[in-house]
Every structure is written in structure tokens, then in C-alpha cells.
């Protein structure tokens, strides 16, 4: 329904700036994908899929745009149920590719449910937070949000698809933050995640620099997870330290609640145990990736090779690039996974600094528009959904650029709208369609 105010101001039903940014990114992405696959044996299939995914994606985009987004809130149970069934089904009927059972094989193309699950999760979570907005500052709500995610994460681990969790976890945090959750609760979660990541990283650093073991304290720290007794000792030690700090604050009349000290100790202890679990669960290639990130030159022919070659590709592109279809690094196969996870290396080599700048700016425009749409949204649900989608793009953008520029470890994460990948493209365009739907149904006068 279009509301026309007296002034004759007609409400725009489509955010054309956003759409323009999407088209530019799609064009760059398609050119880069075509250029990078020319030497690959599966070239024909990739081009076919890309040409199929773009119209399908645009169709889904149009459908999501025209459909009132509030229906997802009304029917959230169906959305959640469908999402769980979709993910569970792939464990039963899916096919294995690259060690993960995450694909439905259809007659013409394959579908990766985890890509759609991400959008579904954002919708379900937005509904949950919208309903609990009055009790958002209670721990119960935060835990409830994670409880809602838990089955999804569980099904993703079963595939296993760690990169999907890597993307989803920050999205959940960002939505909680945007909804106004207590900073204390969020920092506990963040601290917990930080510590469970910190322990494996510290241990890896020690492995990389064996001379550090000379110090008995570090040696003790390294062997902390070896026996249950030393772990128990660690738990007891942390509790005592926390208690001592609390006692100190009481003596100093600092008037700080003991809850904080207990919480800090708990986070540390839980983080430690999670760290041990993470370390034992880490596959060898993931361990290698972590090592390579911490010390890129340690293995130039092995795991570090990908990153090094991608960096050479980007660096050799220079300001103007070597021309589309003329990059030697990517076309001759020095850059691995060049049409998916390392698509930015192709862009950097062939289109140069200006190409990279264009991609980064288009991403910035896209994220800015999604954020503006959030502010304009008719209701809180729409606001939260937009925040989730903003978070999704932010995470993809940060990880992909960060990885290729050497700020974060190698993670098998594509760059939406640029990388080859039918499911990812369709799911992304669906998410953007929902954004446009929220925009189209915004308050008229703002």
C-alpha cells in the first residue's frame, strides 16, 4: 500500500543505490570468475552454474522484495522448522564434497542448505529478540537466543561446516548487541569465546617457538591440558585468585559485586575447557592454517603457499591491474580456490588497486544502505533483521579482505556477490530482497 502525503512526496519502493551496488559487484564478480576458470577443467560447468544462479538469484530477490517480510515473523515456527529439516535432511540425503556432507544434489545443480540456513536463522532470531525486547537485559534472554541457535550449530557441526558457524556466531552477537542486550552479558560471551580461542593460539605459538619451553612457567602452561589433575589445579587456582581479588576489593571498600569476580573466574575456566576441546577437535589442516597465519613464511610450499601466492597476485596487480583475463598468478593456477574463496586475489591482480577500491567501496555502500534501511524499518522485527543482514555482510567482508591482506587466518569463506557459488549467491540475493521488502514497507515520512 502506497501512502502519498499531501506534499506529493511519493514513497520510493526500491532502494536503487543498494541495487546499483549489487549489480556492480555482480558484474565484477562474474568477470573475475570467468577469467579465473578459463584454465580449469570444470570451466564449462562453472560458467553454466554462474549464468543460472544470477537470474535465479534475481528472481528470488524480486520475490522476497514483493513479499511482505512480516510474514516471516508470523510464521516463524515454520521458518525455524523448515530450516532445521533442511539442515537435518542434508545429513541424510546430501552428498559429500571436500570432506563435508553439505550438498543436496539436484538434477541440474546442487544446493547448499547452510547458506539458506543463515538467512533463516537471522529471521528466527529477530523474531525472538523482538518478542523479548522488554526482558532484553536479562541473562535469560541472551541464553535463550543461544539456545535457539544451538540446534542449528549442532547440525552444522555434524556436516561439518565450521566456516558457517564462524560466520553465524558474530551475526548472533551483533543482533544481540543491536537489540540492546546487557554489555556485561555480551562481554562474558565475548570473553568466553576469546579465551577459548586464545588458549589454542597460545599453544600454537609455543609449538612454533620451541625455545619458549625453556621457561618453566610456559612449559607448565603448555602441558596444562595433559592430565586431569593439572586441569583441576588450574580450576582451583583460578577460583582462589578470583576470591582473593574479591577480598581485596572488599578491603578497599571498592563496592564491587562479587558476581563480577565469580563471572570472570567462570569465564576463564569455561574458556579454558572449551579451548582444550577446540584444540583436540581441530583438524590438521585447521591447525596448519593457524600456524601459517601466525608465521606465514614457516611453510611457503605447503599451507602458507595459498596465502603467499594470493598476496603475490594482489601485489603484482599494481594500481591499474594486469587486465582482465591477463593475470598470470591466477590464470596459471598459482592462486588456489581462485574462483571461490580467493576471488579477491583475481580482482586485485587483474583490476589492480582501482578494482579492489571499487569492490571495497561498493561493499561499504551496500552495508551503509542496509544500515539505513534498518533505521527506516516499520517495526522492530524489520530493524533486527536488517541488523543481522548487515552483520552478515560485515563478517564476510572482514574475513575475506582480512584473510587476503594477512589480518586473519585462512578460512574457507567466499565473498558474497563476487565469488562463484550458486547457493551463496541466491541466499545473499534473497537476504537483500528481504532488505528491499523492509525498505519498501518503511514509514512513509522518514
Amino acid at each position, binding site marked *: 500500500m502506497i501512502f502519498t502525503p499531501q506534499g506529493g512526496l511519493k514513497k520510493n519502493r526500491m532502494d536503487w543505490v543498494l541495487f546499483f551496488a549489487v549489480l556492480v559487484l555482480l558484474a565484477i564478480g562474474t568477470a573475475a570468475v570467468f577469467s579465473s576458470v578459463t584454465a580449469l577443467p570444470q570451466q564449462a560447468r562453472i560458467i553454466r552454474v554462474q549464468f543460472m544462479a544470477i537470474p535465479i538469484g534475481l528472481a528470488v530477490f524480486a520475490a522476497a522484495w514483493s513479499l511482505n517480510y512480516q510474514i516471516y515473523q508470523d510464521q516463524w515456527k515454520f521458518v525455524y522448522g523448515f530450516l532445521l529439516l533442511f539442515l537435518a535432511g542434508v545429513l541424510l540425503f546430501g552428498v559429500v564434497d571436500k570432506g563435508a556432507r553439505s550438498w543436496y544434489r539436484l538434477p541440474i545443480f546442487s544446493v547448499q542448505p547452510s547458506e539458506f540456513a543463515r538467512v533463516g536463522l537471522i529471521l528466527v532470531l529477530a523474531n525472538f529478540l523482538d518478542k523479548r525486547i522488554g526482558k532484553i537485559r536479562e541473562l535469560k534472554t541472551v541464553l535463550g537466543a543461544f539456545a535457539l541457535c544451538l540446534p542449528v550449530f549442532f547440525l552444522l557441526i555434524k556436516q561439518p561446516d565450521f566456516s558457517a558457524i564462524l560466520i553465524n556466531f558474530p551475526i548472533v552477537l551483533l543482533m544481540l548487541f543491536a537489540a540492546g542486550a546487557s554489555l556485561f552479558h555480551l562481554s562474558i560471551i565475548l570473553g568466553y569465546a576469546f579465551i577459548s580461542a586464545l588458549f589454542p593460539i597460545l599453544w600454537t605459538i609455543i609449538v612454533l617457538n620451541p625455545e619458549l619451553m625453556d621457561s618453566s612457567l610456559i612449559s607448565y602452561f603448555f602441558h596444562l591440558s595433559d592430565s586431569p589433575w593439572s586441569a583441576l589445579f588450574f580450576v582451583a587456582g583460578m577460583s582462589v585468585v578470583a576470591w582473593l581479588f574479591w577480598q581485596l576489593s572488599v578491603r578497599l571498600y571498592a563496592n564491587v559485586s562479587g558476581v563480577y569476580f565469580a563471572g570472570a573466574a567462570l569465564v576463564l575456566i569455561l574458556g579454558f575447557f572449551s579451548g582444550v576441546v577446540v584444540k583436540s577437535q581441530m583438524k590438521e589442516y585447521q591447525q596448519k592454517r593457524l600456524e601459517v597465519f601466525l608465521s606465514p613464511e614457516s611453510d611457503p610450499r605447503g599451507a602458507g603457499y595459498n596465502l603467499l601466492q594470493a598476496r603475490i597476485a594482489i601485489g603484482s596487480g599494481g*594500481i591499474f591491474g594486469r587486465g582482465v583475463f591477463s593475470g598470470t598468478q591466477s590464470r596459471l593456477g598459482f592462486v588456489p580456490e581462485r574462483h571461490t574463496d580467493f576471488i579477491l586475489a583475481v580482482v586485485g591482480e587483474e583490476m589492480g588497486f582501482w578494482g579492489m577500491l571499487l569492490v571495497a567501496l561498493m561493499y561499504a555502500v551496500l552495508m551503509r544502505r542496509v544500515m539505513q534501511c534498518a533505521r527506516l524499518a516499520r517495526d522492530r522485527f524489520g530493524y533486527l533483521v536488517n541488523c543481522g543482514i548487515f552483520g552478515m555482510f560485515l563478517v564476510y*567482508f572482514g574475513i575475506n579482505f582480512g584473510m587476503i591482506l594477512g589480518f586473519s587466518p585462512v578460512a574457507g569463506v567466499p565473498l558474497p556477490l563476487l565469488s562463484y557459488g550458486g547457493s551463496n549467491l541466491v541466499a545473499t540475493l534473497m537476504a537483500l530482497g528481504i532488505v528491499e521488502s523492509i525498505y519498501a514497507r518503511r514509514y512513509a515520512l522518514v
Partner: protein
Amino acid sequence: MIDRQIPQDRLDLVWTLSYGLLLLFLLRLINLQVLNTAHYREIAEKNRTQIIAQSAPRGRIFSSDETAIATSKPSFSLIYFPGQLKAGVETDRMAMAISRQLGADYESIKGSISRAALREKPVRLAENLPPKAMLKLSELKAIYPGIDIIVEARRYYPFGAYLSHLVGYIGKMDTKEWASRSMDKNYSMDSRTGKAGLEKMYERELKGKDGGIFLEVDSRGRLNRVLESRKWAPGSDIFLTIDSKAQAAAEEGLEKSLTGKGAVVALDPRTGAVLAFVSMPDYDPNQFVLSGSEKDKISSGKTLPEFNVALQGSYPPGSIFKIITGAAILESGRLKPEETFFCPGYYDAGSRVFKCWEKKGHNKVDFITGLTKSCDVYFYNAGQRAGALTIEKYSRAFRLGQPSGIALPEEKGGNVFGPGPRAAKKSYWFIGDTLNLSIGQGETLMTPMQAVGMIAAVANGGLFHRPYYVDRIVRNDGQVTLKSKPEILSRAELKETTWTLIRDGLHNVVFEGTGQMAKITGAEMFGKTGTAQNPQGKDHAWFVAYATVNGQPSRVAVAVLVEHGLHGASAAAPIAKAVIEAVLREDLAVKKPELPFVGPPAEAPAVKPGARV
């Protein structure tokens, strides 16, 4: 959306964070793509290119009459590019076919193919292919796409051992040399470099700029396409002062001599230009070019005859030293040249008797006769009168004891014998030493290079030039980059009458004395024979000579040493004659029949030092 329950400023915070992230990435991008492009582009280029170096033809080496002594000829190599053909049954069949065509060992070819496939680098399967095999291999090339034939330039010495001690040879680099050259982009692991002589001294000029085939390969080393085929640039040509005819005469003469060992050096007394340079035994430099393995065979079998007799061989000069003694006698002013001594065939030094080489004696002998007949007794007497110190002084004036200064490595300077060095060793000088010194025996040592310097000085009036053998170096674009100029090192200041008397004596030596075998019709020959006693074996034969035509300044001086040649007159003089004839061939165009040989062949062995008679 207006909703008091949601703190919207949190969204601003998130946006600020994203903005910071974007800025961080842009800074890093500028660092990578704008500031460090050249570095990364170089790595990317190295990644994708592989080079098959094609060695450039080395500069040619010509004699003064433009006969090529060292040149290059095309050589064909068989190359295998891995990747196009996977190692397996196909390559085994290919190895079989190639080994059948080349007559090479199947296992070794198969081995190099599989090694190349493993390392993903192109490899030379065979080098220096004969043209006959080329046609058949071209057929194989059509069947097996992984192999190719490239043409390279290979060093070639058309005359084999000819002038080998001056030209030197080239060969593979050893580890040490490669370490010092690895930074030079013009050298690769299997480049050949000069190992001795001219090839080593002028490596920089002779080595051209290598060409190469630049291949684009993918990440697995498979050949994608040929990027560029860079043409080589040949090295500079070197023109020597060597006269090819004189050189040939010297080589032939020395080869046919009694032992075939020794040295011949001919100079132009006007400039110091080397006209002929032979040292035997010599070697064929072609054998080192071919491959490393052949060199190993030779070096393991017998030692390489790299010893340069002309520069490094120090011999007692014997009677040719009488030129210096004569100069000392005349310059001392202690006796007149007309003064005679009686030669009964021996000289009684009181405690010992020193023989003359002619047992019958020479009767009354003056300076000219003494030199002509090479009468030892005259020089015993006259040398004593002149004094050992005077002789030592003039042997220094004739540059004994110091290298001639030719641009070749490890030249020896001979040895000065006399009271001075003896005193330095804190030892005594005896009368017998003076006698031995007078006739060039004792501790005096001379290299053939010094001998020719001495006779050239007689020819040109005492000038000692730095001997040189490179006349000019011409770059491949025709520009002369180096042109040698004569350089005077020192001058033996002797009175004009002294020179005249010595020259008269030397002329008489050839005309009627001991050196008659060197007589040339149409030219004035001046020479001196020498027979140097050798305690270790048979005597060495010396002959030094120069010639003038129609009173013009002399154009050639030559020194010949035949190791263990017994007699200077019979062994060395004919070689000198042949060399001088070759140099003066145009002046002697009307050749006259040689005179029949008459007279005594040579000096007899005179004195064994320390022998009592």
C-alpha cells in the same frame, strides 16, 4: 523507526567500527599494490617463467693475418619439457626411441626424463648432436610433443692444440667459481667459462650476452606457451699479434725436434708484439668444451700439460748468456775488444781446470772470434777481467730475475747469479763461480720469454718492451674497444760501439760460427747458440736470433728452447730459422736454395760444474 526500547546509537558504533576496518584494509592495499608492486610483480614473473639459456657464441680469436684460432660453431641440443607428456609408459617409449637414435644409454635417458618430470624443469637430454641425428630426431619431435631441438653456439678450436698455451681453454665452472658468478645474470649453472690463457684473462670480453627461450609455465610446471625467444649477442673478437705462419712453423719445428718438448717465442723487437708462442707439451682445447665427463677422464688418466714452458720453465742459459757477458766485458772498459787470449782447450784456474767445449782449442781468440766460436776460454779470461759484479749488473740490465710482464699468469723471472745474491745468502763467492757465470752456467736461470727479450734488446738497441699478444679487441658492432700500444719497461744503456761489436759477433755466429744452420739468404741473421748443461739429464738446446732485411730495423727476434735437445746448433737453430723465414716471407719472396751444411754441428758439452779434470 522510532522505538525507545532500542538504543540506536549502538548501530552508529558498529558503523564506526566498520569504517575503521575499511580504512585499515585500504592502507594495507596501498602498501601492497601501490608501493610494492615491483617487488610482487618480479616474484609473479619468476613464478611463471622458465628459461632455457642458449649460450652466446664467445668472441672469436684471430691471428694478426686473420686466421681464426678459436671460433664457434652451431651445436644442437635435445631438450625435454616435462608436463606435456606425463612420466610413464609414453616417456619410456620416447626414451627408447631417443636412445636408439643417439646410440645412447637407455637407462640414463630414462633417468633424466623422470628426474625432469619430478622437478618440473626442462632438461638437456643430449648436447652437441651430429647433423646426421638431427633429421631422425626431428621426426621424433613430431611424435612426442615433449621434446625439442635448440641450437646453441659451441666453442671450437679449428687447429686443435695450435697456440693452446696462449689461448687456453674453456670448461664447466666448479662450485667455487659458480659461487662467485651466481649473482651475474649472464651466467647459469652450466655456462662454460675460460679456464686458462686468453680465454680466462679476457673472459669478460669474450663472453657474449646469452640468449634464451622464455617459457610460460603454470603452477605445476607445465609448459603453457613460449613467451619470448631472445637472441644472443656474441662476445668481442680478439685479434692477436700472432703471425699464423710463424706460429705454424714454430709448432711444426718443435714437434719434429729431438724430444718434441720445449718452447719457441718470437717477438717484434720494435714493439714487443708476440709473433709466435709455443710451449710443448701442449693440449687440444676442444676436448674440454664437450662435456665435463671427458675432462674427468683426462685429468684422472694423466696430468694436464698446463705447464707453460715459455713462461714458467727456468733453464740455465748456457752460451746464449755470452751476449750479456760480452756486453759486460765491453762496457767494463777493462779490456779492449781486440785483446786476444790463447785457448788451449782448457783454462787452469789453479785449483781446478775448466774445459773449453772445443778440446782442440781455438788458438788466439779476440772478442768477435770468442763470440763467433763461442770460445769458453776467452770468456773465462775476459769475464774475470770484467769482474763478476759487472756481469751481474748487466744481467740485471737485461732484466734477468724479473718477469717479462706479459699478461699471462704465473710467469717466472729466472734467477740472477752473482756475488750480490750470494752475499745475501751469507755465503762465499769463488773464482770458479765467476768462470761459470761467464759462460751462463752455475745458478743463472732464464725462461725462453726472457731469452727472446734479451735478443730483441740487442736488435733494437737495448729496449725492453712489455710483450703483448692482443693487438685489438673488436666488439660485435665493429667498434674497437681495446688497441694495444707498445710499452717500454726499461732500457739497457750500452755504448753504441758495444752494440755494434755484439751484433758483429752474432752475425758471424750465423755466417761462419756455431749457428750456420740458421743461415737465411736474403736476410742478415744474428744469432747465438747455447747448450745448457743439465745435471738431471741430457743438455738443453738454446738458440736466440734476430734478422734484418736491407738494413731496416729488425722485425723479428726469436728464442728457441728444445728440452734435452743436446745441441743448440742442430736442434734449436733450424726452428728459429723457419720461424724467421715465415715472418719475413714477403721480404724473402725470391727464395734461394739453402746452403749445404758445413762445419762442426755444435758446441760440445763444456764443463760439468765442480768436475775436476
